[in-house]
């Protein structure tokens, strides 16, 4: 899965070219011209490009990728490369020059569109980015596929009648070149170095071997080429943009090699129907692989964002609980306590039995209010936890229970404050429920901590039959635990007793 920082790095590469490239513009031109010319010669040499059109025209991808990563100002490199690559013996000079102009416009259009797209979206890791990149490639190659054949026709290098057919092949061949090289270059130009564990390296090797094998038997015409699709989908999922673009390039290289091996060198006039099939195969393969990669990456990123959001929301809620507890403790609680004391002082002045009774009743009510407030504030966030830790707070809770509580196990270390608070909340709720409803004669409490988190088990030997209804305290406990990503279980067979089990996973802060 592709990690977040890579997305950032990839976007940044649109704005900032590598340092070595910006240092000398001239060297950039020379380098681009060589790469462009080299990839054209490579195509001629292996017979998948002809003087007119190609099965796959790699230079368009090389040129566009260079301008996308380095900047549009490197366009003269593409011009020089294309002029060098023109096969002047096969086509009229003016036609060649017209074709070169078309090719130059082509890479500039693609680069301009993709750079614009990259200002907003990652071109490989978001669906919008992929769509934008595809649109850019299709538009740019269309320019070349119109200008090139027309100028050849105008210079007499091509009959007017064959222009539509040549244009179509031209467009597909250039689009294939763009689709193969641009995403590949973008995926590998990003900052983070490739780091493969031995296991991942073996996985990558096996995947490439399987893709190579399937492509090879497909190229021999033994099996349909689309057998490679599932493997490419797996690679996209497992290895992200780099894996997917590399795998597609590799598969296409094998298939195209097989195509030229079987049908001889590509020439637009001896164009076999199988060329169209191969081109469409490349387009479909590249697009579906890009879309799969973007989908997987987007989903991964969305999931990470959601988790981060949940984490923040949870932390904020716990902080709010602590704040409320502090406010209650420092404010209303202290004021009521002060009132109780002053009432006690004044009660001594009460001389008549009626007055004494009124004072006693008022004091009773006041003490009840203080108790309720104390319980409320405990439920919100028990300050006892921050002071005593979970084990001692549980002892103190057990000490206050009217039903005898057996502490089977208490944790030696408590974990983070938030999970402690959740565990303590479970304890207070279950003990309160047991006291109110169970009629039990004893309660067993077990709280343990391990690497996975806090485990809380509370069992009573009461009447059982507790159910989890909406809005109940039990539902509240489940929700509190589940916001932690923990688990909660209630077993309460009638006549046997009630057991509550909660697991609160340790939180990494």
């Amino acid at each position, binding site marked *: 899965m592709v990690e977040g920082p890579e997305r950032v790095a990839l976007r940044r590469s649109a704005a900032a070219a590598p340092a070595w490239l910006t240092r000398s513009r001239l060297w950039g031109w020379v380098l681009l011209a060589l790469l462009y010319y080299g990839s054209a010669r490579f195509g001629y040499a292996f017979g998948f490009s002809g003087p007119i059109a190609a099965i796959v025209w790699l230079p368009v991808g090389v040129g566009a990728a260079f301008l996308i990563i380095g900047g549009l100002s490197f366009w003269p490199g593409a011009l020089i490369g294309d002029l060098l690559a023109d096969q002047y013996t096969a086509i009229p000079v003016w036609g060649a020059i017209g074709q070169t102009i078309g090719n130059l416009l082509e890479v500039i259009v693609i680069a301009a569109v993709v750079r614009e797209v990259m200002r907003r979206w990652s071109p490989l890791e978001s669906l919008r980015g992929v769509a934008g990149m595809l649109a850019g490639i299709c538009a740019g190659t269309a320019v070349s596929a119109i200008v090139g054949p027309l100028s050849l026709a105008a210079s007499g290098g091509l009959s007017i009648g064959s222009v539509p057919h040549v244009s179509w092949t031209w467009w597909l061949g250039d689009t294939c070149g763009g689709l193969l090289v641009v995403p590949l270059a973008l995926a590998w130009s990003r900052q983070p170095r490739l780091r493969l564990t031995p296991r991942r390296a073996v996985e990558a090797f096996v995947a490439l071997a399987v893709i190579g094998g399937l492509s090879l038997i497909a190229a021999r015409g033994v099996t349909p080429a689309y057998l490679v699709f599932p493997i490419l989908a797996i690679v996209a999922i497992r290895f992200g943009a780099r894996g997917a673009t590399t795998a597609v390039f590799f598969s296409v290289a094998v298939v195209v090699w097989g195509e030229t091996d079987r049908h001889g060198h590509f020439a637009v006039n001896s164009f076999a129907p199988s060329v169209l099939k191969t081109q469409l195969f490349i387009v479909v393969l590249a697009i579906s692989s890009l879309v799969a990669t973007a989908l997987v990456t987007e989903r991964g990123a969305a999931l990470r964002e959601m988790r981060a959001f949940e984490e923040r929301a949870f932390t904020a809620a716990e902080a709010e609980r602590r704040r409320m507890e502090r406010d209650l*403790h*420092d404010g209303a609680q202290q004021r009521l*306590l*002060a009132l109780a*004391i002053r009432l*006690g*002082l004044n009660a001594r002045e009460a001389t008549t039995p009626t007055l004494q009774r009124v004072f006693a009743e008022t004091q009773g009510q*006041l003490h009840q209010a203080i108790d309720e407030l104390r319980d409320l504030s*405990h439920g919100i966030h028990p300050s006892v936890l921050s002071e*005593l830790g979970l084990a001692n707070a549980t002892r103190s809770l057990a000490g206050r229970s009217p039903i005898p509580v057996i502490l089977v196990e208490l944790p030696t270390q408590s974990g983070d404050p938030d999970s402690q608070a959740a565990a303590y909340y479970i304890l207070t709720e279950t003990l309160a429920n047991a006291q109110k409803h169970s009629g039990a004669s004893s309660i067993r409490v077990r709280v343990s901590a391990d690497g996975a988190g806090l485990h809380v088990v509370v069992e009573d030997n009461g009447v059982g039959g507790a159910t989890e209804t909406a809005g109940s305290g039990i539902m509240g406990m489940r929700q509190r635990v589940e916001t932690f990503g923990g688990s909660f279980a209630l077993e309460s067979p009638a006549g046997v007793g009630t057991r509550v089990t909660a697991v609160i996973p340790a939180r990494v802060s």
Partner: protein
Amino acid sequence: MQVLVADDSPVFLEAAVAVVEASPGFEVAATCRSLARAVEIAGEARPDLVLLDETMAGASPGDAAGQIAAASPQTFVIFVSADPRPFEGTAPLVDKRTLSPTTLTDLWRERPSVQP
């Protein structure tokens, strides 16, 4: 008896002062709103008694009592708490709501005798 009342809640501090003033034989020597200040005052004024808010005393009330004792060995410490819970140490702990002249004088009478 000279009493130091230490509590970080101003509202409760006032009420506690009223209780001390209403207790025969007791008078308020000083008040303060933090443990550090309480230890300081104990060292200077050597009160007979400190009413110390347990929450304010921090994580370990036993330690807080020890600090007062170090500053003024003769001083008797009574903890008061809004939410009384058992803790390590020998100092008595009073639920804030039950603080009255009676509890104060009772605890004072029953204090362990301190060897000079």
